[in-house]
């Protein structure tokens, strides 16, 4: 269990990377986890080529979802929209590097579903 709350996870929870909002995001997307009342909003700016130029997130969440959002947004910087759409749950679990029980899977995957929703919206806009 102590593994679940590894120092790295707790550090990302307390001092999340890319926390906050952007002034003129290309898209702003929010997703909820009805189980725990969590919400994560992501602001994304893409550059001309379609790669992520800036990304920030804010919202309510547990240590797992906040750390996942922190780690994920680090990874997404510079990434192409197409690549974001190809990301899987497994990618998140590898980023987190902790054992996630089925009950906590939704927390871990909430940031990814926000990112994917954002990517889908960006594709719609850029078409």
């Amino acid at each position: 269990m102590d593994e679940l709350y590894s120092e790295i996870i707790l550090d990302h929870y307390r001092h999340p990377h890319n926390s906050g909002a952007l002034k003129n995001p290309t898209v702003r997307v929010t997703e909820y986890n009805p189980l725990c009342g969590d919400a994560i909003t992501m602001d994304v700016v893409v550059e001309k080529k379609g790669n992520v130029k800036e990304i920030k997130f804010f919202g309510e969440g547990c240590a797992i979802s906040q750390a996942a959002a922190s780690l994920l947004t680090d990874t997404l910087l510079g990434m192409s929209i197409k690549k974001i759409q190809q990301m899987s749950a497994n990618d998140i679990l590898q980023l987190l590097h902790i054992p996630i029980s089925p009950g906590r899977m939704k927390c871990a995957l909430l940031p990814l579903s926000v990112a994917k929703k954002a990517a889908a919206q960006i594709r719609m806009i850029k078409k």
Partner: protein
Amino acid sequence: MLDATLIKPHFPILKRTVHGVSLAYLDNASTTQKPLSVIEAIKSYYERSNANIHRGIHTLSEESTALYEATREKIATFIHANSEEIVYTKNCTESINLVAYSWGQENISQGDEIIISALEHHANLVPWQELAKRNDAVLKVIPLKDDLSLDMEIYRSLLSEKTKIVCVTALSNVLGIAPSLHEIIHQAHEVGAKVLVDAAQSVGHQKTDVKDLDCDFLVFSAHKMLGPTGIGLLYGKKKLLDDMQPFLYGGDMIERVRQYESSYREAPWKFEAGTPNIADGIVFKHAIDFLEGIGMEKIQKHDKELRAYAVELFSAYTQVTVYCPKNASGGIMSFSIAGVHPHDIASIFDSQGIAIRSGAHCAEPLMDRIGIPATARMSMYLYNTKGDIERAEMALQKTLKTFKI
């Protein structure tokens, strides 16, 4: 005095371990554990009496029917009702929907008002929201005061001849608050409104007397009072049930069926279409027997004592907020820790073998009112000991240590 250490051995599941440590089950407001007598009764029913009810002439069918109806009698006596006033459903939520559809459709029209309280969980909120939408009625809410009790002054001002039904919990599943039901019901009746009491959290924890309360409907679930899942109950005053249309149609609830026209049985059977959950309905009797064997007054007192003990232990930590309204009466205690999400609290408690609930507890509007997205909740029952609460305190210390708070 109730000695929980003597009660615990009757519950086989409480002997198991979780993550290598023995289980302390403190999530009883979600569902309760089952005594051996209930578990064995399920096996015995399927081994001896299993058959469909109300239709066969053979011995097994007659036995099953008699057992099923005997439990209906038992439930009725337990809450001081008559057996024709007890309808079996699949859960408390279905009981509320039955009233919202069947009674609501006939009795709520454009401009009518439905009153609920700010304490309600989703089951006693959403069916009324939808009914109000369908029939162009208005949903009004009794707000909470700063001390988290219902604002009875505003309640009185909400009541009028337009009010058709008031729907209120007997015991809040988040805060453990027990609204003044007698007062609420009496005042509703003065303007001619009916009252539905959501007693899911109370029937298994304290004495319930529907005659004394004079409520029009009262709903609860077997699984929150040592019984099996899949059995909900609806109490309704006989006259009201008689006047209501069926909710679900089909077999078993019919009197005569012709190709283009049918007539229906009397209440409560007209509300029970199709083959019901016979086995679980029957064995619920053993859950009530168990509760009666202990005594409802003793159970209520035990809940209160454990809650007071938990409040005392947890309040000693300045980092912990205990939601402990003065008027709370049930064995339910919500708490939160600044800087630690309730999900993380529940995960660490689980690692120590302690089952608690975290989240919005299916009461999102109430959470909005308190101003937090979620809480952690401990809910106690007759098999919980002071030792369970002390172990919860140790898990609390572990949580604070992990998060360096």
